[in-house]
């Protein structure tokens, strides 16, 4: 991939690389750069470090603001060519730069972070010097911030790969030079990975390839731009969920042997910050309306994808009042598994398949909102933990469905099954 490089400090090597992926972040990147620089000076002053802005050629001068921000650490600007977008492309450039510079530790941090402090740098890098290869943050989030994480990526990472990593698509990660080299040799880079699929891809690869993974307790809430989970999901849902499903196909040999999940080591004890995360307002009626309109639009597709028993149960959830709606965790798991198998078999075009899941995801989110409405963050976390355990128990369904070989008339054949 062609890269546009600005290297005013003539950086040729670095032990620590901190990357900031961006697109049009002129107003926020300066603060993030300053906090990173303070962290590098304070905790890793003796190490050769560089801050890299990996950008999608932002037309708002993000790169200029980045390079003009005063820092002790060297700076490097790398951009994709004009017109080429995608967070994953920026991260690919960061990983390549990290490997070329001979980095031992690489960190990536979102450019819109408002709550980052210098200690974040210490907490993301130190575990790597202690022998870990991949560091995932844990931070306090509002119970309705990160609904794709809570409903899809977190439970599926647990169920499929047996690791409990609470924020698998956090976006802010630390990783070793060894893992960076492994990322570059992976064959599973695809269009979704070059976009927002990158975060779950990195986490899954680190776990699936047996690298040493840990979590780091940043304590302070992640404060960035949040939005109502019922607003337009944009391409993010498609890219993240598409990547998760694709990796299930790639790593079949792994998840079939996963019988239960295990906790992942946590580094540190938090930073002692007792702040409430920014509130995320939810328009429950909107979530319900989107399910109902989805029902009209996708009913035929749902019939193709979702097993009759599960579809009947799904359709019955709307028979109670909006405030009492619940999509049980076991049903949600089986529906996700129906989708995964349909994705593998390309029962319907994959774009349509993923779009048809969105209204079901909305009604599941509404059920989560209803169940946790009166709960504080801790109680909502406990509730989610119970939900995940119930979902883990449904793995039998995925294994059985995965191994069914449909006959031409659609009825699974025992003979074909036994021949596998």
């Amino acid at each position: 991939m062609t890269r546009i490089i600005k290297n005013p400090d003539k950086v040729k090597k670095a032990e620590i690389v901190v990357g900031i992926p961006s697109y049009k972040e002129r107003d926020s990147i300066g603060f993030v750069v300053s906090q990173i620089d303070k962290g590098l000076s304070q905790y890793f002053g003796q190490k050769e470090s560089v801050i890299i802005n990996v950008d999608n050629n932002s037309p708002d001068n993000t790169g200029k603001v980045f390079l003009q921000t005063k820092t002790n650490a060297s700076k490097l600007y790398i951009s994709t060519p004009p017109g080429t977008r995608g967070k994953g492309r920026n991260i690919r450039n960061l990983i390549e730069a990290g490997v070329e510079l001979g980095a031992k530790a690489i960190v990536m941090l979102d450019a819109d972070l408002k709550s980052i402090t210098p200690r974040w740098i210490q907490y993301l890098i130190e575990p790597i010097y202690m022998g870990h290869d991949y560091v995932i943050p844990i931070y306090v989030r509002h119970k309705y911030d990160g609904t794709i994480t809570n409903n899809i990526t977190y439970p599926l990472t647990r169920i499929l790969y047996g690791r409990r990593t609470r924020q698998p698509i956090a976006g802010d990660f630390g990783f070793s030079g060894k893992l960076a080299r492994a990322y570059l040799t992976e064959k599973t880079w695809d269009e979704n990975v070059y976009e927002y699929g990158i975060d779950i891809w990195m986490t899954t690869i680190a776990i699936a390839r047996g690298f040493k993974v840990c979590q780091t307790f940043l304590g302070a809430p992640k404060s960035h731009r949040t939005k109502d989970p019922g607003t337009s999901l944009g391409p993010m849902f498609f890219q993240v969920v598409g990547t998760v499903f694709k990796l299930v196909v790639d790593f079949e040999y792994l998840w079939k042997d996963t019988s239960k999940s295990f906790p992942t080591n946590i580094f540190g004890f938090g930073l002692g910050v007792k702040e409430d995360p920014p509130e995320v307002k939810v328009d429950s009626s909107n979530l319900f309306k989107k399910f109902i309109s989805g029902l009209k639009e996708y009913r035929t597709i749902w019939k193709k994808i979702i097993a009759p028993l599960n579809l009947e149960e799904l359709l019955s959830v709307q028979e109670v009042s909006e405030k009492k709606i619940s999509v049980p965790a076991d049903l949600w798991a089986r529906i996700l598994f129906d989708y995964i198998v349909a994705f593998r078999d390309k029962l319907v075009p994959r774009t349509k398949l993923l779009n048809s899941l969105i209204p079901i995801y909305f009604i599941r989110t509404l059920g989560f909102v209803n169940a946790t409405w009166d709960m504080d963050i801790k109680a909502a976390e406990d509730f989610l933990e119970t939900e995940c355990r119930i979902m883990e128990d449904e793995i039998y369904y995925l294994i059985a469905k995965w191994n069914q070989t449909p006959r031409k008339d659609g009825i699974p054949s025992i003979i074909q099954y036994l021949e596998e």
Partner: protein
Amino acid sequence: MKIDKDFQEGVAIIRPDEKHIDGYMAVDFKSKLNEIIQNGGEKTVIDLSQLEFIDSSGLGAMVSVLKKAGILGKVKLCGVKDGVKSILELTRLDKVFPIYHSVKEAVASFQE
């Protein structure tokens, strides 16, 4: 779908009279199993001796009934043919449902 019902020593015996239980039958299978469990089948044996194939939906129906029955071990299986047994083993459901050779053995296990 046809399901035969019987009681022996306070244990409900359910015998699906089908060779295949798949997605098309699972809804019916589940509702009939539920009906039996709710009407006194606290201790239940599902006799699968007629069954040659069960798919993910059929397994889903059985697991759902198991959950309704409440405590692990209240629903037991018997007469499981090799093809079905391999599915139960593959999906690790053999660890969830106790499996016995015959109805007699399964019923007797409730007295232990």
